């Protein structure tokens, strides 16, 4: 059975006619063309498919689009505003926090939610926030460094403003 879903993705209103059981991950990738969100494990373990729903990290492989109607969905494609990279994206690129890059979208969005809640997290807090996102390339070191650098820069921006 197909249903019509109306989603707010990255500030745009999008509609799709999809089987009711199709996951948010599949609808984003296949129906809305937002392939920045990736398949990893498909059972909610690896965090690769993370998107933000009303600012909170959600595993899109376990979410159904009908449950996210009326919410603000943010994918990696919506993270840079007006062509300006988010400080997390800037720091990840500068510090080599993305190697193969496949887990990167999910980690960036999880970190975005963390910094929105805790602008100056400790390293342990960053580790705990990202414990649900597997990365097989980096050993996490550069990722943690990049989140810390972005937090520092965002704090400075805030102070200036």
């Amino acid at each position, binding site marked *: 059975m197909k249903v019509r879903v109306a989603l707010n993705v990255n500030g745009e209103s999008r509609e799709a006619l999809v089987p009711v059981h199709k996951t948010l991950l599949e609808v984003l990738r296949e129906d809305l063309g937002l*392939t920045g969100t*990736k398949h990893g494990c498909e059972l909610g373990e690896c965090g690769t498919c993370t998107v933000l729903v009303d600012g909170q990290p959600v595993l899109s492989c376990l979410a159904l689009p009908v449950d996210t109607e009326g919410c603000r969905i943010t994918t990696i494609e919506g993270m840079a505003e007006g062509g300006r990279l988010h400080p997390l994206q*800037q720091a990840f690129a500068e510090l080599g926090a993305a190697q193969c890059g496949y887990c990167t979208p999910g980690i960036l969005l999880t970190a975005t939610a963390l910094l929105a809640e805790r602008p100056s997290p400790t390293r342990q807090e960053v580790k705990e926030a*990202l414990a649900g996102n597997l990365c*097989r*390339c980096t050993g996490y070191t550069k990722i943690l460094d990049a989140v810390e650098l972005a937090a520092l820069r965002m704090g400075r921006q805030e102070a200036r403003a």
Partner: protein
Amino acid sequence: MTKNDFAVIGQPLPKVDAWAKVVGETKYADDLFLPRMAYGKLLRSAHAHARIRSIDTSRARAVPGVFAVLTGDDLPRVKFGILPVSQDEEALCIEKVRMVGDAIAAVAAVDEETAEQACRLIEVDYEPLPALMSIFDSLAHPEVRIHEYGDGPNVHKNVALQFGDVDAAFAGADLVREDVFYFEGNTHLPMEQHAAVAHWASDGKLTLWSSTQTPHYVHRVLAKVLDTPAAHIRVIATPVGGGFGGKTDPFSHEIVACQLSKVTGRPVKIALTREEVFYTHRGRHPVLMWIKTGFTKRGDITGCHLRTWLDGGAYGSYGAASTFYTGVINPVTYKMPVYKFEAARIFTNKPPCGPKRGHGTPQPRFALECQLDKAAEQLGLDPAELRRRIVAEPFTKTANHLTVTTIGLGECIDKVVEASGWREKRARYGVSAVQAKPPSHKKGLGIACSAYLTGAGTAIYWNEMPHSGVITRADRSGGVAVLCGATDIGQGSDSILAYLTAEVLGIDPKDVHVHPADTSLTPVDLGSYSSRVTLMCGMAAIQAAERLRAAIFKAVAQKLEVSPASLVARERKIGVPDDWDKALPFARAVELGEALHGVLAFSGSYAPPKRAGKYKGGGVGPSPCYSYSACVVELTVDEETGTVDLEDVWIGHDVGRALNPLLVEGQVEGSVYMGIGEALMEEQVFRKNLHKQPSMLEYKSPTTLETPEIHTILVETDDPEGPFGAKEAGQGPLLPVIPAIANAIHHALGIRIDEVPITPDKILKALELKRSGKPARVGPGKLPLFTFKEPIVVESAFGQPADAVASRPFA
């Protein structure tokens, strides 16, 4: 050259593809959607070993939305495999399946769900055969044959090499140790599942986009198994979302996607599920090892004899090479004057093992480094000092005729010893320490070292052609295109090509456009394996860029009326240093060059120096140069629960030269991380013929919380073989981590776990043995009854000087 002579090399620059990756723009294979594209699915065997009596696809064909159904009968009857000596795989099995997960039939349909549904309707009539699920099983049942080829019933490969008289070496030793170790297999677990999109177009030409580390080998295999001229096939490696060796074989799903595209007249995508990736495997071989080593009182090695038994799984894959790799690299690290090595790879009815980061070498490294720790304890020597004493001599040959160039291992050991506070902590921590809080938490410190090759010295198929090629083309805009068959799997090969080209031409890496891994556009690079890409593509890129620079210099020299030798290229300009005001912009210089020579496109080629030992088997092990690593691990073990908490890892790595220290550190940190997973939790194990944990939920790998602080120390030795002196960094640093952890656990608790992964149950068992006064060791005891081949006996080349001049083809 010193660091200050470089503009780009040695700078911690972002990767050239970093920006696309942080905004989600990078297109991995599964991100490709082509018009009219169909979705393919494979029906896989539910039996570990069975004859196929018949396959009925009629019900699947009748499903609405199904475009095509294939069985092995719809493909040319040609077997394939990555190595010429092991052509034992079928894209779709015809007569027999050899493991759960073997592909039998395939469906292309309007969507994945329909294809899956149709697969379930295919009826296969199996005649089950006994499943052989371990080395012991397979050797005990020669009457059951998994394959008809090999070096004996269920023996894929049986090799034996001897360099010098080991018996005499043991007779002259003060201490001779014999130890037995077991290394459980584990898998790569890349975050990206393998995917392929095939388009067999109406002009009869085939294009395959695939998440592969070896597009060139896939190209060759497709031509063979599809019975189609290679000239009409184009393979494009998409950016790979993690490889680690798991995407280095040609795979069934790639071949089937092509054939499905041919019969449907549509592009076809096959994306593996996570469970399929676990069964596709090609990961770390489970290896049982016996190692006998003689030592003098001061810790010098008099000789070493190693036996390894590899559980190969159901197919050859890279296994013939893996078998040699369990033996040939050990003599590269320490002074080992005499060496004997026997190895056998056994077929079992499990997913085939192959190359995983470190290919065949982490297992014997674990054995050797744990044995060194035991010997140091017995001899009353500090394990760091023992190793420091016996580091191999640079620019010499090993017992097994490998040529070693620079060695920075001594410096690596010194630096990790210093940074970790080794001496003080070794005295303060450990089994006899009293300060533990709570008392059940015991701290320990362990050390281990390693060496690894920078690219295999011989190609997978014998040929006299380059291993790596580059075409560099300058544009009138001042931009430079670099075409190279190398595959970026996250290690940064695209970036390295841009940095080296920019360095030689005096331009910015941003001015360089790298076009990788497309068999119709790019010169061959053999693939992203054996840590070969930075060195081999790098050398080819430097050669191409230097040829381009020479052509441009000639034109600029005419214009400025100076000699070409007086010119330099830097800051996007070309001119005479003493008269820099007259220097021409690079783009203008390109125009002059093009006016003088015509189109400015130059090639670079690289093949390693020919140094294979002159004995059968001498082709595995040679490398242009070897990297070295030393690792100290600090950890706490809870005696009550057996859990290990890693605190810090110090790793010193001799990378020759860090072309980009940020990227090198990233490779080292990633290697350490992967070693930790293998040491403490990861295992590819089976129950009732099925993978015990074929999902990311069950297959445990380290998260941020299990990964300790990793302190990376880079050592530079400026190797004459590498591009600007660089050696490998992506695999070697994994090797010492595993034994360093085992040795630290021994320091903490006085127990020996001679088997990885070192799980809490093994630690508790060893502690129980210790309490009851028995030897506090958990590990294998039994060895297979097996007759190795009569060894090929060769004089040891230990200590001979390296060839004065290495002659390289195409140099």
